């Protein structure tokens, strides 16, 4: 196992931010940490980064407890982005690289490559304060990977990126995965997690509620979702027995059924009252799973950390 989180816990004053969280991270895979706001994602990541010290439990890298030197082989993009406004892009990249124990020379050879890669080369000697928010995001991403880290940890990776830049970053991440890097990122945008991740760990209320391969998780949930498109007053649909939860978009609903329900009878009940335009029996989306699990978690552990990210 490359990285192992062993029952880590962290409390801030009265609030429990993370409680007894364990997670195994294998080399060469992409891991998504998902969870509602305040679930404990950032605190977990900070403990992995050795920035926050766990109250109990430990983080192991190749079976050894992590220490300061671990920081050199990790690239970390924090949720709250920050750069020195007065430095130029080249200076920024060089400084951040040198803080990862790389020599100025080693970094110099890579600055142009990376700036070209994210389309910022013409800003190389401009100051950071001249960049737009999206550009600054890309620059920060470069500083995260400039030292060729073995593990890349990205907190809320996609926040603030437009679709075009998102594609650029996504392709870099996939390329890194192919070259054997391990990527761990947190997000609350399920569509991205679903498309990118091999494994998912969901945290809610400071506790792990889901962990495993994305495919396995879906299979566990069963093929029990219906995507329904219709015309007419569909308010009654939410009340039909056998439907566990509904994600409502007015003329479009995603229904999650209780296990082994007869989909035919449900279709009949619906078709009686509204015009059905589409009736799809599908795998649950990560979004469905997320909502379902988040609801359960908030019912079972209502008093846990809400403000700690």
């Amino acid at each position, binding site marked *: 196992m490359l990285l192992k989180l062993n029952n880590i816990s962290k409390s801030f004053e009265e609030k429990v931010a993370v409680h007894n969280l364990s997670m195994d991270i294998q080399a060469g895979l992409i891991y998504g940490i998902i969870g509602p706001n305040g679930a404990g994602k950032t605190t977990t990541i900070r403990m992995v980064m050795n920035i926050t*010290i766990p109250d109990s439990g430990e983080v192991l890298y190749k079976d050894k407890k992590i220490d300061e030197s671990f920081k050199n082989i990790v690239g*970390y993009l*924090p949720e709250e982005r*920050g750069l020195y406004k007065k430095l130029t892009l080249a200076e920024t990249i060089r400084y951040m690289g*040198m803080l990862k124990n790389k020599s100025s020379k080693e970094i110099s050879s890579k600055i142009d490559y990376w700036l070209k890669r994210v389309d910022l080369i013409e800003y190389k000697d401009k100051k950071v304060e001249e960049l737009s928010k999206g550009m600054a995001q890309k620059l920060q991403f470069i500083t995260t990977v400039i030292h060729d880290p073995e593990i890349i940890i990205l907190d809320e990776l996609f926040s603030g990126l437009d679709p075009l830049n998102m594609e650029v970053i996504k392709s870099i991440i996939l390329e890194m995965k192919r070259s054997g890097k391990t990527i761990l990122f947190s997000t609350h945008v399920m569509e991205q997690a679903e498309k990118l991740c091999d494994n998912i760990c969901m945290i809610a209320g400071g506790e792990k509620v889901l962990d495993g391969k994305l495919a396995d998780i879906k299979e566990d949930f069963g093929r029990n979702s219906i995507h329904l498109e219709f015309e007419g007053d569909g308010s009654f649909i939410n009340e039909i027995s056998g439907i566990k939860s509904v994600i409502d978009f007015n003329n479009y609903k995603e229904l999650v059924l209780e296990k082994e329900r007869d989909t035919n009878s449900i279709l009949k009940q619906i078709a009686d009252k509204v015009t059905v335009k589409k009736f799809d029996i599908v795998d649950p989306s990560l979004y469905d799973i997320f909502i379902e699990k988040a609801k359960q978690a908030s019912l079972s552990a209502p008093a846990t950390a809400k403000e700690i990210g």
Partner: protein
Amino acid sequence: MSKFWVIFVREYLNIVKKKAFLAGVILTPLIMIAFMVLPSLLGDLDLSEAESIAVIDFSGQKVGEQFIEAIKEYDLDDDNNPAYSNLSLIEIDYFDSSSFIAAKDSLNEMVIDEELKFLLVIENDSTRQPSSTSLITNSDNFPSIRRFERELTAIISGIKLNHAKINLPVDSVLSLTERIDLEIVNTTGDSVNPRTKLIFAFTSIMILFMTLMTYGQLLMRSIIEEKNSRIMEVLISSVSPFQLMMGKIVGFGAATLTQVMIWILMGSVLSLFGSMFSAELSLGQILFNPVIIIFYVLLLVFGFFLFSTFFALLGALFDSDKDAQNFLLPITLLLMVPILLSGPIIREPDSTLAIVLSMIPVFAPTMMTMRIVLIVPTLAEYSLFSGIIGQAIVSLVILIITTIGMIWLVGKIFRVGILMYGKRPTLPEIVKWVKQ
């Protein structure tokens, strides 16, 4: 290159490369020199045009006449133009006080209307001797006023001597009572002007005070800014908070030292030519004393480290300059104490109070500097184990040990504080961080 050095180099260059640094290096001593030199320069300035003066002599003893004769001797410039014009003398009989008041009032009006620069009024005191003289003017021309005083002193002393019926020529009596200026000489026979020592002592601690406060606050602000711009988290995902704190403190300290070393060099060069400006400014003898310079630099450097831990602490605890600003006053006061207590210390730099204060780490940088500058130039020989040098070494050791302790303590608080946003930590919380 270790990460500490990477941070150190960046923080150092970040300050030293700024234009404000260069401006500070050049302008600060210029302002200081201006403050010291300008008054004496201005005092020696020649008058640009003749000044008018009227004298009302109410003494009946020809003081006014002698005075006018005396100031006629003063020249405005090299062409022998007189320095004073419109020399008018009004002598009024001692019993005619109504004419005196009338004359005084009308001439007073002329001073108000700026038709007349000076109005000298000579009256007698109760023993009927001329003494209560006053000068009515709107001018602050010091050289003229000093001349008038000098001449009047001579004239009135002469008259008084005559009244006293001393059986000696007046001139010889005046020469007997000449004022003596003491030359202060130390035990090895070197002449040490106490005023020069004082100027130097105050300059030294003012530089210490200013650099510590300026760079300390810059350090505090840079930490607050890194917190607010959220670079902090990026930084400590690469380096340990302790490396970051030390890199910053030592980087800022090195910038402070650079600035002061430039000033010491500038001062040394200046003092070589000092005698050209004014004898009082020839600080050379004191400045070139290596004992003073070595201890000054050591006190400055470790003083900066100690105080920068306070500033780093404020930076780590607060999110805004405004919140942190409230806590600057105590720090300022700690540095100000020696200045506030300078009276007794100057009189007795070896008193128990002075020695005790200079051993307390927070006072040591300024207090010890002051004592060293006051005492060392008077010493014939130095001993490492006793006297001021021994005390300075003890005081430095205490300062260094305290600084190391503070760095350890603040390092613990720093580690947690820099990741806290938006909320002021309470004292019990801070204590908890230290215990962790």
